[in-house]
């Protein structure tokens, strides 16, 4: 992970976080010794040309890249993005730390907005991941259940369809014919349910580009319902994938907070 801050024309700070949370802090192409690590909250203070004080902090974030912040004389700096920053009013290119557009004077987003945007982007990524997860798991479960269903159906092959199956299943008594229908339907049911969820998450991911707050709220509600429904169907699933569940909920929750902060800041 690389982050660059262009403080002014002659001052640039680079932070590189590599494997095993190893960090490199570079000021104007010269490495600065530091004790920074991405494994826990850490900070480094150093001097910039012109006697300005700089402080760089790293905060690990569960489930996503660490949050890095650079303060110069107490003011939060905006990282240099991959694409140039443009004014929301006239579209002209602005520098990352400009408070106002140099061409039309329109107020530029505050540095805090970029932190909120990170949370929103992380939430959108989580929604896309959920969409992919539901799609892939739907197909995998369909294949597995089809195979298991074929085995079960072959065992029922010789039985009279109108006769009662000797053992109740989940407390319900079935005729052989009804049981065959249920077994034949189940893989398709699982596939359709997962495809519906994948489509819902995809729609929310696209909607999130225009309305991130609304989309993330609905995504979190939908995910919570999926977890609860799985828990009702199979209580053992409550303890499965707890880390992933917590990570997804946290990402979506922070996304809601970030999206609301952006929304109220721009209102």
């Amino acid at each position, binding site marked *: 992970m690389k982050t660059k801050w262009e403080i002014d024309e002659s001052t640039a700070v680079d932070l590189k976080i590599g494997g095993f949370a190893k960090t490199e802090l570079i000021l104007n192409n010269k490495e600065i010794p530091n004790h920074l690590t991405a494994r826990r909250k850490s900070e480094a203070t150093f001097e910039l040309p012109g006697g300005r004080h700089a402080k760089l902090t790293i905060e690990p974030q569960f489930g996503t890249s660490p949050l890095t912040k650079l303060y110069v004389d107490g003011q939060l700096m905006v990282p240099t993005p991959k694409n140039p920053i443009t004014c929301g009013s006239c579209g002209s290119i602005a520098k990352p730390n400009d408070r106002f557009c140099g061409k039309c004077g329109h107020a530029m987003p505050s540095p805090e907005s970029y932190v909120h945007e990170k949370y929103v982007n992380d939430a959108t990524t989580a929604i896309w991941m959920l969409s992919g997860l539901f799609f892939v798991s739907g197909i995998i479960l369909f294949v597995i259940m089809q195979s298991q269903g074929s085995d079960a159906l072959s065992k029922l092959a010789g039985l009279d369809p109108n006769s009662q199956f000797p053992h109740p299943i989940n*407390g319900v008594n079935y005729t052989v014919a009804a049981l065959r*229908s*249920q077994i034949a*339907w189940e893989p398709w*049911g699982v596939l*359709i*349910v997962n495809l*519906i*969820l994948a489509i*819902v998450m995809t729609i929310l991911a696209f909607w999130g580009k225009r*309305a991130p*707050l*609304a989309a993330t*709220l*609905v995504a979190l*509600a*939908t995910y*919570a*319902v*999926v977890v*609860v*429904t799985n*828990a*009702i169907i199979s*209580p053992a699933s409550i303890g499965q994938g707890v880390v992933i569940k917590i990570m997804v909920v946290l990402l979506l929750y922070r996304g*809601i*907070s970030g999206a*609301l*902060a952006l*929304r*109220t800041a721009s*209102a």
Partner: protein
Amino acid sequence: MPSPPAPVSDRVNHNFSFQWAEINRAATLFVLLLASSFILGMIERINSSPWPEAVVSGVNALIVLGFAGLRHKEIVALLGVPRIAWRNAIELTLLSLALLALMSIYFALIEYLGVPMLRAASEFQKARWGLGAMVVLVSLMPAVVEEMAFRGVIQSSLEHVFDWREAWIIQAALFSVLHLLPMMFPSHFVIGLGLGYLRHRSKSLYPGMVLHASWNALVLFQELS
């Protein structure tokens, strides 16, 4: 006569704390209703009596009433006589009938395709509960409680954060997912949109309650017949 709620554009407060509190209110109600569905689901794994469902319905009603109380001015205004011209009332009635027809076709289609359907009245029938009890617990109570919850508390809270269209879509989405069955997400989302639109146009919860109860009653009587 309670004053009508302020126009939506006036109600969107741009303060972060205020909006966060409104989202929290809607989310808390949603989570409590989801938790009660979870508890009911777990009980029904071991007990097929209709009593747990009746008790949970009562608890949900109390929860929703509590939240409605926190928002009593807006809810009381929504419990007034619908403020709508006759022409618009006819238009909305036709829309409601079209929605009922569309949902009937949707459920007939998925049943035709062999999708196993949950029977709302099966536990009540097995326990030999009377028709009156089934009408109250399957048709009336869910309609009143869910309208108060989604079109009342949740949509009102969301309208303090979003414009009416976004609030309308979000409450419909929350309404659809709270029914827990992904197969019903599309149908219940459309139903939620229809009910939310009725509430928006009539400035009242009653038309939605009538439509919702009618739909529930239609499902109930189809099962019983």
